[in-house]
């Protein structure tokens, strides 16, 4: 049974905003992830994080992405140029990358993979750590 995911209704991030995703971007893995999102929320989406600024990026690398050894770093403008949309889902600064013009999961994943990105080695990486809230 799918859930009704709520959009936060925030202003869209600017074109120069950074978009982070922990882990690799292997095609088969991304397709499986988007299908998991579809199973829960009824749309194909890939989870990413959008820090507000450089300090926010460092904070994300030390919190939500603490346990990711590598992090992919995109820019909003590059993702939008590939026909992707950014939906403000979940808790800020979480977003879903979606491809609205065509609901096909492979189109979504291929657009993400084709988007220019860089790979960061997370300087805060600590798979044993965490806040235990």
């Amino acid at each position: 049974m799918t859930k009704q995911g709520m959009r936060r209704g925030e202003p869209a991030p600017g074109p120069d905003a950074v978009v982070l995703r922990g882990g690799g971007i292997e095609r088969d893995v991304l397709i499986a992830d988007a299908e998991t999102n579809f199973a829960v929320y009824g749309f194909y989406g890939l989870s990413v994080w959008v820090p507000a600024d450089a300090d926010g990026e460092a904070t994300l690398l030390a919190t939500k992405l603490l346990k990711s050894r590598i992090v992919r770093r995109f820019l909003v403008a590059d993702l939008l140029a590939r026909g992707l949309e950014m939906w403000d889902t979940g808790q800020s600064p979480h977003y879903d990358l979606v491809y609205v013009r065509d609901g096909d999961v492979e189109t979504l994943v291929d657009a993400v993979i084709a988007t220019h990105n860089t790979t960061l080695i997370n300087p805060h990486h600590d798979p044993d750590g965490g806040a235990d809230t």
Partner: protein
Amino acid sequence: MIYIDLDADLNMEDDDGRNFARFTPPADAPAVGDVLVAGRPDFWSWVVIDDVDDEIVYFHQVSTRHAAQLATLVADMPRAV
């Protein structure tokens, strides 16, 4: 190399900030309260299972220290008979 119990995208969160993943029932069905390793080789964490709903499992990440307080993290070595 870490052994992953539950394949999961740890970027993925629901509206309550919980991670979630799909599993294939019934063979690898986790139960509420289970302490597992979830994620992928380059992005994994010890987690505690919060809820299981059909084929979707919800969980939260914990430190190794906290996981060790909740469960035995190392499996027994097999003994020769």
